């Protein structure tokens, strides 16, 4: 059974953001959950050193095109390589922060009671407008929406990351979706797009029956 708190959260989202209701449900669907859990699992297995891995007690993570920020909470739950100081969720959707606050308020409170001090900060921003300064504030940068972005936008963003930043990228071959403007045909094509930007690349593929999701984890050169 759904617990009463979840039902209450769903009711509030429906009442306050009816035009976003389906989109919110989509952001939390099973494939989204599996993709994000898969990401955290493989990130935990990644063995190569990244910037500040040994120097800092706590690191910060930036999520590009973060939607309503579900991945932030998967990371807080399951990421075990370092303690996380902040997760920055970057999205140009002006409603993302308000909706995320309603979705995850209870989890934020529960985490605080458990002594988990990680802050999730939402910033309404186009990733094209992020500066080198913005990118240098995080040791790990994650973009799970490569298929939604022009390739040059991804490259420009990568170029702003300091050397040594741990980069996680996801894309897919699901070209039947109208917002997927930059799909790749297979994992090899996806990897080849980033070989000149990253070292120590680990590559992964997950089959979702009607499409495949691809992931690479590497260190910015």
């Amino acid at each position, binding site marked *: 059974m759904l617990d009463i708190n979840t039902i209450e959260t769903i009711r509030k989202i429906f009442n306050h953001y*009816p*035009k976003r209701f389906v989109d919110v449900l989509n952001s939390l669907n099973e494939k989204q959950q599996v993709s994000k859990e898969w990401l955290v699992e493989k990130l935990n297995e990644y063995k190569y050193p990244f910037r500040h891995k040994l120097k800092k007690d706590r690191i910060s993570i930036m999520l590009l*095109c973060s939607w309503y920020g579900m991945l932030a909470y998967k990371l807080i739950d399951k990421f075990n390589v370092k303690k996380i100081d902040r997760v920055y969720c970057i999205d*140009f959707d002006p409603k993302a922060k308000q909706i995320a606050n309603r979705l995850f308020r209870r989890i934020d409170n529960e985490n605080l009671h458990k002594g988990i001090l990680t802050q999730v900060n939402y910033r309404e921003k186009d990733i094209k407008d992020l500066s080198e300064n913005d990118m240098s504030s995080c040791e790990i940068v994650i973009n799970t929406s490569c298929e939604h972005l022009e390739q040059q936008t991804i490259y420009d963003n990568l170029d702003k990351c300091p050397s040594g930043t741990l980069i996680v990228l996801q894309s897919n071959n699901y070209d039947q979706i109208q*917002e997927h403007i930059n799909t790749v045909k297979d994992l090899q094509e996806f990897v080849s797009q980033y070989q000149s930007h990253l070292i120590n690349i680990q590559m992964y593929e997950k089959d979702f029956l009607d499409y495949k999701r691809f992931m690479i984890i590497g260190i910015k050169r």
Partner: protein
Amino acid sequence: MVNVYCVKWGTKYDRSFVENLKTSIEKHFTIEHKFICFTDKPEKDYDIPVTHPELRGVWHKLSLFQFTGDNLFFDLDIKINGDINFLADRFDTFTCIDSTPWKIHKLDRLEFRNDTLINTSIMRWTDNRKVFDDFLKKRDLYLRLYKGIDRYIYNEDIKYKTFQGNAISSWQEGIEDNTIVLHNQKYA
């Protein structure tokens, strides 16, 4: 001079739909005009290539707003049975079709489905560049939220008027002999 646009993208409609529309326009629209087909596969002298190949299907209709002037747009699946000069009586505010007559029964689902009470099978505009520029700035968000441009325009508070009078109907109303009959979603 009025620019009369249509969009042919993909394989849903074959070339005969474009030719039929062109012939109908020549017969029923006697105001001086230029017929233009905006397409991903230019073949004829009246074709021009789409400018934003990353977009799909109906979203190319929205990209027509980059063009200024006295402009009309027609979907390929409309039937014209009589004089349509009234469509060009004034070119000021962006104008499209009120779809309430065939959508009224769906009103209860309107909001959470991001549905719409307008239809863009026919559009009239002079300068709507801002609408397209704003769309491009957050293209990914809008493509995620809306299935088509009717929903985008209706739900994003874009200013529009609707054509007045009773000369435009939809086949969904069971009407086939009006001046203009939309066959919207008939070929989906």
